[in-house]
């Protein structure tokens, strides 16, 4: 019987993940309504449940277990990007135009400060070669910029692992923290969402954090965040690496 069920789920992984996520959403919206009187949005609770489940697994989170592999497809980059693009239907072009300049400034500034603070922490922790510092600083941009920079600079895999971990920490803090700090940082309109996307840059964190804060803001944040990783991959192994190299010598 168990073999039969395992077989069935293995063949229909994506369908099984619809059921699972549906149940998680149901539980979390019920918790939000009845237990904490909507103080924390149901979406935020659902995301935290997701992260907790991910902790059970390994590299691919809960999808590391074959029976939950379908979640990897549902939460993978293909469907994620597809649904993020579809949210553009609810975006207002004029509002994006109005925020355009602020968005571009925040992109460059966001990559710069993430790199700067990531590198400083790396230095404080005793790394003093330009390649390692640059790689860890790049990881503070996003978990994609880190390994791309690291392999461009030929650093060892343990440094790359730290840089990926740094990026994932950023994604998780953004996911959980955004709804908590939204009020304090004025994240309640399309323009600040555009700036938020540009400053934070981790597409998954920005998307999840905004979804938990106010789903209407998602398209605005996602629009700028999508350029961040590319910009980081461009700047970190080149300009930033040279600057670090000059500073360290």
């Amino acid at each position: 019987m168990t073999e039969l069920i395992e077989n069935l789920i293995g063949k229909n992984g994506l369908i099984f993940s619809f059921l699972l996520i549906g149940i998680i959403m149901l539980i979390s919206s019920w918790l939000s309504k009845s237990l904490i009187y909507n103080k924390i949005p149901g979406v935020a609770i659902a995301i935290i449940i997701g992260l907790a489940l991910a902790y059970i697994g390994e590299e691919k989170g809960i999808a590391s277990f074959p029976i939950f592999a379908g979640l990897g497809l549902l939460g993978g980059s293909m469907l994620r990007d597809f649904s993020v693009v579809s949210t553009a239907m609810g975006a207002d072009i004029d509002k994006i135009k109005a925020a355009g300049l602020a968005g571009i400034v925040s992109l460059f500034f966001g990559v710069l400060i993430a790199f700067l603070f990531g590198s400083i922490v790396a230095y404080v922790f005793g790394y003093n070669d330009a390649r390692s510092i640059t790689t860890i600083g790049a990881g503070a941009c996003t978990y994609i910029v880190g390994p791309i920079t690291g392999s461009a600079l030929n650093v060892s895999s343990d440094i790359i692992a730290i840089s990926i971990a740094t990026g994932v920490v950023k994604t998780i803090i953004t996911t959980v923290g955004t709804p908590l700090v939204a009020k304090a940082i004025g994240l309640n309109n399309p323009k600040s969402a555009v700036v938020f996307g540009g400053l934070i840059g981790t597409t998954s964190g920005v998307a999840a954090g905004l979804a938990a804060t106010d789903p209407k803001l998602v398209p605005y944040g996602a629009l700028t965040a999508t350029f961040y990783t590319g910009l980081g991959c461009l700047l970190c192994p080149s300009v930033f690496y040279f600057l670090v190299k000059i500073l360290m010598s």
Partner: protein
Amino acid sequence: MKIYGVALLAFCFLLGKLLGNLLGHLMQINGDVGGVGFAMLFLMLSNSFLKRKGWMEQETEKGILFWSSMYIPIIVAMAATLNVKAALSGGPLALLAGAMATFIAFAFIPLLSKIGNKKQTKKEKE
């Protein structure tokens, strides 16, 4: 038909990704630079074009709106497939660097949102 909407979304998605990958290739980064952003712009433009022409039917729109309503469940699935263990086992360096980078960025949001506003009001005054 709803599939028209899904097809339009797929077209914008692929075109945007193509442009993003092309840009990445030109910049010599083996990856996608802003593909999702371009795709979103294409979708917004084609949506307003079709609406102006009166060709955007409600059913077509529903095909796209279905996917945007699937967005949050997909994010929950994504959260469940993140490498949370690695993030926590990356040690205090990864935790501190990741946290610093995020909180500093949070702190700058009000400031950068304001810079844009000033310019806007200036333009309005002119």
